């Protein structure tokens, strides 16, 4: 019997830096760069390709309570730092109207490299995600989990949707980010890997043939991390409210525990073809929680909300075992009142199509609960 995974948890978020006057994205990271080092800051501020994008990650935490404290501190730190420079922070997966064509690229060699390789596609990648790491020490179990957990990822994407706008227009989607990222190779729903050997072979072949330097360039919605003993969930839009991010991270943690317990009983969730999972992924991007998704066990369409509730029921015991039920209240709020995308669209309509009001709304919600 393999040991229970540690289920440690860490969250990385990619934030937008905003000019509060124009509400446009604003270059920020270069103010802290000395050569290729970030200086004068007591945290590990990671520059990204676009200068207006900042990535921050929490330390490895043992409980959801702890990661919440860290995430709140991290957001507060960044908001303070930005405000010292007269800037604001927004957590949403796309900026409602800033144009990617006008965004300066961070002047570090590695980003010039990305730009050279990916060309216009890299410039368009002005999108902001949340990555949740859950500690799974046994690699075989991590791969096993990756295969089956793919099924639930569209459901969590639906809950996190926060990118209804692109370049100043309503896209008609709830998560436009998840479409933009799919233009990149090695992105989207993971392929089935039957064993650790399968995974190692795949990475080995790609590295040997010069496609990638290492596994960090596999940008699937869910992947074993190339360095840490974690499974990394990358499917979600960044959540605007910190409570939503924590609740979704809690779902991932409980899911892994549930799957581990099933495995002890010789049971596995069914592994479905990528083509089928992609149908639900598209529905999640398009409709968020307002649409229908497919229950492939029953081959029936069901309201997305009903399927999310069913998912929460499935992992009910594990939620209590981990003592995280109080954090999951935010999911109920989303199901009742909509996701960040729904709220942004409401603000847009209530302000007669004033898209700057959406930015103000995002800045305010990002600070909520800090």
């Amino acid at each position, binding site marked *: 019997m393999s040991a229970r995974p540690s289920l440690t948890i860490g969250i990385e978020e990619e934030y937008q830096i905003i000019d509060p006057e124009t509400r446009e994205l604003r270059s920020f990271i270069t103010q802290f760069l000395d050569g290729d080092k970030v200086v004068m800051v007591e945290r590990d501020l990671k520059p990204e390709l676009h200068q207006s994008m900042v990535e921050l990650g929490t330390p490895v935490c043992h409980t959801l309570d702890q990661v919440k404290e860290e995430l709140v501190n991290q957001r507060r730190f960044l908001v303070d730092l930005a405000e010292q420079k007269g800037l604001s922070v927004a957590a949403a997966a796309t900026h409602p109207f800033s144009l990617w064509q006008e965004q300066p690229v961070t002047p570090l060699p590695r980003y010039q490299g990305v730009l050279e*390789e990916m060309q*216009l596609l890299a410039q368009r990648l002005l999108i902001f995600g949340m990555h949740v790491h859950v500690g799974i020490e046994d690699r075989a179990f991590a791969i096993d989990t990756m295969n089956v957990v793919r099924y639930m990822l569209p459901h969590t994407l639906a809950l996190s949707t926060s990118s209804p706008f*692109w370049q100043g227009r309503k896209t*008609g989607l709830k998560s436009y980010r998840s479409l933009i990222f799919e*233009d990149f190779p090695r992105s989207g729903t993971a392929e089935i890997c039957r064993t650790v050997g399968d995974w190692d072979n795949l990475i080995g072949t790609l590295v040997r043939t*010069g496609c990638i330097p290492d596994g960090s360039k596999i940008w699937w919605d869910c992947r074993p991390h190339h360095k840490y003993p974690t499974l990394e969930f990358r499917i979600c839009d960044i959540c605007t409210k910190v409570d939503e991010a924590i609740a979704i991270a809690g779902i991932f943690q409980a899911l892994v525990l549930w799957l581990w317990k099933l495995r002890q009983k010789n049971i596995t969730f069914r592994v479905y073809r990528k083509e089928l999972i992609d149908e639900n992924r598209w529905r999640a991007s398009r409709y968020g929680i307002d649409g229908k998704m*497919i229950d492939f066990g029953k081959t029936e369409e069901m309201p997305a909300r009903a399927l999310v509730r069913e998912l929460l029921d499935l992992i009910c015991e594990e939620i209590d075992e981990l003592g995280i039920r109080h954090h999951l209240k935010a999911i109920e709020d989303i199901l009742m009142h909509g996701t960040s995308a729904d709220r942004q669209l409401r603000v847009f309509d209530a302000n007669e199509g004033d898209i700057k009001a959406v930015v103000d709304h995002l800045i305010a919600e990002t600070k909520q609960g800090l």
Partner: protein
Amino acid sequence: MYYPSYNIGIEEEYQVIDPTSRELLGYVTQSMAREKMVVNERTANVELAELIRSGTVGVGTPVCVDINEARDRLLGVRSQMLELAQAGGFHLIAAGTHPFSRWEGREETLAQYRQMAEDAQFVARRILAFGLRIHIGIEDRDLAVDVMNTLRYVLPHIFTLSTSSPFWLGRNTGLKSYRAVLMDSLPRTGIPGYFSSYHDYRNYVDTLLRTNSIPDARRIMYDVVPHYRFSTLVIRICDMMPYYRDVLAVTALLQAAVAWMVDLRQRNLSFRNYERTLIAENKWRALRYGLDGNLIDFGVEQSLPARTLIRELLERVEPISHKLHSWHELEHCYTMLERGSSADQQVAVWKENGLNIHKVVDFLVSETEKTA
């Protein structure tokens, strides 16, 4: 033993261009199922729509027994369309994207097109990306799926030759086929996964139908699929190509590659089936770098110049091509390797003319009008 017909069907899409502004006015597309040209209903130009709808453009069944018949038919359709365009005072171009037009093609509307393709009752897959659809007749459906699996490997190589969409909204995208990026952002596109039998494939299609994910099987638009009605494999990975000889060469190459896969099978051999992830690496390199890049030979696990690997493919299908009486068209691929794909030509024209994008349109018009 299997004896597929290897019949050929070519479906093209033409952009209709205003000769003064060089803007895109509309487009016409060919459909095997309807045996006529279909005018885009939302075409900005009523006069043009009338011309085509008046019925003079019945193109008949496009099924051809070999590449020679395909050549006659392709030239027939093209000259008919060119005459019509001339009568109406328009130009025609055959290419994967329009170099600069914003006509309903703004990037921001991509989502709406995707949504329309999902929600509408008919196929409204209109992002302004123009692809070539080639049908190769394989009557046995299980054999068709078997060939579909193995054929995936050589599709990036063949696609490389067809790349013709380096520009989008007036910008040099830095890619050789931006059309492929646009197309692959739609659902059920790109390199397909592996299917163990026709039954396996039908299961997939039926699940989508039962769950209201698609209204009919036409929505499945992977780079290669069995046609939902005809007993053909449809290959749609290629960009539209301006010069008709390029189209014939690529078609002949696809037909020969299909026949080669069947020939292996008849000898109890099979081309290896590689994971989609690996094949997708080659597709990415093909759309990014075209003929100038490297592709991966997964057999020897080496990254090699695309031209080398395409030459190797040409050598391997040459004997079969002779049996199919197609070598005189297929060998034009060697000329394409030396000359570069249309994308390479377009970028060169653009650079030679001080980055004047109108000159690229003019070049495409003259390439499309060539009949020799």
